[in-house]
């Protein structure tokens, strides 16, 4: 079975700073994985490297067996911030862009998602609240039938009702075989959702464990585990 994501010895520098060091990571199809770490730890960079947005890395990144940035992108649905669109663009125009640009875009899934997330796509992009904008980004991202979904901090700065709806739509619409990586530094709301947890600290992946393993071996919740990793309560040799 091909891994959904297979990263070997990934190193990435920019502006003479080391951002990721020796990252090696394998994720299986069908898993929901929490990518946790402080701001600036390298979560976003790792996602952007997987999606082929960050350049000049050393090492290999394979998604669904594809190693070049262009072919990887066909299998990756990344929650992008919609900066390529103009504030006056209607949401339905953005949908048209996606439908035309991505062969795996499902119009039906899109319709189901915006209905469930209560988004009126006759609105203009500039009029959306932060919560609605984030929900719309999730709707677009999940409307693609991709092998890998990368959600970069989908819950930051949005109200709890929107957050619940987003979580619910992930459960409803993620295909069984698709892998989903959710980055966050606030864990408690998504803890029950995660199959696995990957923690980035000091420019590298310091641990990658199954959620059940964390709960059973350490007797800790995901959030408590994450905090103790960061505070150094759990030493490296315990992983």
């Amino acid at each position, binding site marked *: 079975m091909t891994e959904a994501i297979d990263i070997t010895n990934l190193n990435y520098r920019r*502006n003479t*700073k080391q951002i990721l060091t020796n990252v090696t990571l394998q994720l299986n199809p069908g898993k929901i994985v929490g990518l946790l770490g402080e701001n600036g730890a390298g979560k976003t960079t790792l996602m952007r490297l997987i999606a082929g*947005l960050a*350049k000049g890395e050393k090492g290999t990144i394979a998604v669904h067996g594809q190693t070049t940035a*262009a072919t990887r992108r066909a299998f990756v649905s990344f929650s992008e911030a919609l900066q390529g669109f103009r504030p006056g663009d209607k949401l339905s125009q953005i949908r048209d*862009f996606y439908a*035309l640009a*991505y*062969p795996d875009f499902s119009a039906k899934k899109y319709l189901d998602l915006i209905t469930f997330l209560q988004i009126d796509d006759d609105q203009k992009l500039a009029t959306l609240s932060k919560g609605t904008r984030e929900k719309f980004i999730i709707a677009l991202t999940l409307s693609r039938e991709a092998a890998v979904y990368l959600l970069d901090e989908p819950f930051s700065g949005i109200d709890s009702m929107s957050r619940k709806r987003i979580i619910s739509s992930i459960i409803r619409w993620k295909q069984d075989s698709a892998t989903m990586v959710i980055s966050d530094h606030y864990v408690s709301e998504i803890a029950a959702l995660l199959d696995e947890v990957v923690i980035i600290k000091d420019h590298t992946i310091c641990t990658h464990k199954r959620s059940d393993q964390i709960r059973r071996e350490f007797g800790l919740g995901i959030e408590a585990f994450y905090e103790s990793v960061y505070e150094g309560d759990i030493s490296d040799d315990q992983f």
Partner: protein
Amino acid sequence: MTSFNHLFRVMWRPKFRSMNQLLFFNLLAVVVTMVYQIWRRGFAQLEMISTVTIWGSIFGFVAFVLLARQNEQVVISDTYRLLPTSDTKLYLANLGTSLVALLYVGVIQVILLAVGTAMSGNIIRMWLQLNIHMSAAAWHDLAFYGTSAVLWGIVVALWAWAVITLIHFGTNTISAFLPNVQQRIIKVVLAIILTGVLLRFLTWFAELESKLYAAFTGIASVLEGGVWFDLLGLVVVVIVVATANIVMMHRWVEAKY
């Protein structure tokens, strides 16, 4: 993977929309000028050729600048860089759609000119009546100047866009290897230096080209051949610069976020 056809269409739409917005103002300017002329001199004396031409060149230039800006925004935005396609296709579709958008603005000017002439073009009608019996050589000249002017326009636009991207990408690429302090100032300085270097290179290339041409023909003054040779030279420059852009885009230039 996204096909080139679909890529072209998604990149065309926003450019088409902004060109239409621009053309709306263009038309408005032409109409206002026309109304003003009628009010000042009466309908009989109305002359639309200069009105359309002057506004056309102003709005044509604005279109060129707007498209240059859109080109640069597209190549560093996540929205486009995430598309499942090669960097070469993305770059070429971007340049191609801008060119078609510019040609579209040009075609509209021609149509405006034809409408303006039909309405009131006394001068041009007189000129056409006088010249309808032009000699074959004169027709040939007209065709030659016409085609070469359009071709030169296209190649110069492509050249300018490619060079703007080259400076943009060059600045981005080099600054990514420098420490993350005062990046904004570093980028401005880099852009100025790169522009200088590029100008020197282009002057050198132009000289080289004229020498080559002289060496090949012995006489550098045969007009038609000279025009095509210069055009070919510029096409080569465009291809080289575009290739450099694609390489930088592929290896170093990231989307901004």
